[in-house]
């Protein structure tokens, strides 16, 4: 049973012509919206204004836009200095560079200093495609969620990214959130609730729990539909916040279903699977299968080819769900 109505999901969710918008556009649009009222919001970029969509803010509020050039370590430190003086800076770059290239600055200048910096990692996951392995951020969730005091959010679509950007601006403390390059299905609507740290149960089921984050939430929903056709009822949870993880909602679900699959566009180690496994090990240990990058670097290719090759599709989720059911 899906909760489309109560969560105000896109009525065209299961249609072939569902709207497709890149999640990063939600970031750009939200920044412009924020800029109107929030004079403390500054946007920084490291020579990536257009592709992170920070250029929209730049056009609207040039005085609060900071071009740092190709120097991510300095950019992260500048953001910390600004935040400690009263600003709410958003650091915009590719996820391979922030946090990939400035983790020490994120750790000390931002997290340890408790600076109110929001770090936006664009072009995350393998679906960045042809640029190849160096530009496919598949470790960013792991290296950010390990830092004390960090909030880590992986929005599932354009709408949720827009809401996450605003919610993070309204929250005090350091945070990381990531976007995808490609157009992806818009699952939610303006009315869908979004609260940091509160997972959304998208479909209610009794046989298997599927916990997903990012644009792969859509694949999880498609997999659930295929499983329903086989008579397997799935509870699909959009765990948009990786830290603090909503372990209460996940635990409640697996107490009913008895098994779980995690779905993420990230290394299986240290990301959503890691977080869910750590949580359930303490609350209610059950079999968990992981859909994600199998301890490997990526390569150049079309996003759909890569997701298929490295096992991050609806079919892979169905397979993992059947495996977890067997292990019950």
């Amino acid at each position, binding site marked *: 049973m899906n909760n489309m109505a109560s969560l105000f999901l896109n009525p065209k969710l299961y249609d072939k012509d569902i709207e497709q918008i890149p999640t990063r556009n939600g970031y750009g649009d939200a920044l412009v919206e924020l800029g109107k009222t929030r004079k403390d919001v*500054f946007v920084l970029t490291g020579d990536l204004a257009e592709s992170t969509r920070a250029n929209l803010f730049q056009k609207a509020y040039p*005085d*609060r836009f*900071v071009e*740092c*050039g190709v*120097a991510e*370590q*300095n*950019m*992260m*430190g*500048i*953001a*910390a*200095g*600004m*935040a*400690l*003086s*009263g*600003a709410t*800076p958003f650091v915009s770059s590719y996820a391979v560079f922030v946090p990939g290239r400035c983790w*020490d*600055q994120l750790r*000390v*200048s931002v997290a*340890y*200093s*408790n600076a109110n910096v929001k770090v936006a990692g664009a072009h995350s996951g393998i679906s960045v495609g042809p640029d190849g392995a160096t530009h496919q951020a598949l470790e960013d969730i792991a290296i950010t969620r390990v830092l004390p005091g960090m909030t880590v959010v992986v929005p599932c679509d354009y709408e949720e990214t827009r809401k996450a950007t605003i919610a993070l601006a309204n929250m005090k403390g350091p945070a990381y959130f990531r976007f995808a390059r490609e157009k992806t299905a818009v699952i939610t609507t303006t009315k869908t609730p979004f609260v940091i740290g509160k997972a959304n149960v998208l479909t209610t089921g009794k046989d298997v729990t599927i916990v997903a984050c990012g644009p792969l939430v859509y694949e999880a929903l498609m997999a659930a539909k295929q499983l329903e056709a086989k008579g397997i009822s799935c509870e699909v949870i959009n765990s948009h916040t990786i830290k603090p993880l909503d372990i209460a909602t996940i635990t409640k679900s697996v107490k009913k279903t008895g098994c779980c699959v995690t779905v993420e566009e990230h290394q299986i180690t240290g990301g959503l699977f890691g977080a869910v496994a750590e949580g359930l090990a303490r609350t209610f240990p059950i079999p968990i299968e992981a859909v994600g990058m199998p301890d490997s670097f990526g390569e150049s290719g079309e996003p759909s080819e890569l997701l298929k090759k490295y096992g991050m599709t609806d079919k892979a989720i169905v397979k993992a769900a059947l495996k977890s059911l067997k292990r019950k």
Partner: protein
Amino acid sequence: MSKRAHLSIRELEVLAYELRQDVIQALVEAKSGHSAGPLGTAEIFASLYFSAMNIDSKKPNMPERDRFVLSNAHICPILYATLARRGFCDRRDFLKNLRKIGHPFQGHSNNHWGIGIETCGGPLGQGVSQAVGMALYARQTKQSWRTYLMTGDGELDEGQCWEGFMFAGKERLNNLTLIVDRNNIQIDGFTEKIMPLEPLADKFKAFGWHVISVDGHNVRAILDALKKAETIYEKPTAIIAHTVPGKGVHFMERDYVWHGKPPNPEEAKIALKELRTLQGRITSEHE
């Protein structure tokens, strides 16, 4: 209202030697920590905190305060000693509890304790960007406070420093004053052997900075340079302060082995006597 302390040059010179004694006492108790840098920068800290900077120990978070960022945060004993003498924290607590669990006087300075420290430091280079961010924010929001930044010289090996310097030059941050503790040593040896920095002044100039070189133990010269920096139009200022590492204790001076170790109690006794008597110039002291 300005909260500058306005000590005289003579008073600042005496204070610098008192700060050195506090540093030695705290290091002996701590049994670990850095000696050379803190001793070498006492005049600079005295000049900043007791003359140049607009700060108020009763209101450590006062919005219009000048900011100081210690990027070479391993020399924090001199910062703690200065903050204690300026009333931001308890001096006895510092003398007893440097690097001790549960106390503000952590091995590298951090901003968790409300004692007037702005940022967390330790990994070198980070303070440069933090200070640049502060200066940029002040400029963009039309606030008149100034940002003071200190770095070591070995620290300038870090690429992040030069990213920050390049940015500050581009943004013409004339509300930013950097003081480089140019003491020519780093952990493994002399800077010009480990990783040559010269011509350092020319490098800063090439990055769009105004450069002033001073004797880092000459209080008048330091104060003049700090004042001059406030008048420079559309450029950040780098004050290259030539200092003697371990200044004031003859067996520590200019010897890089004292970069990262504290004196033992016997060495401390000699050091404290030298500091009290201005290296033996005062001969009337009782044993």
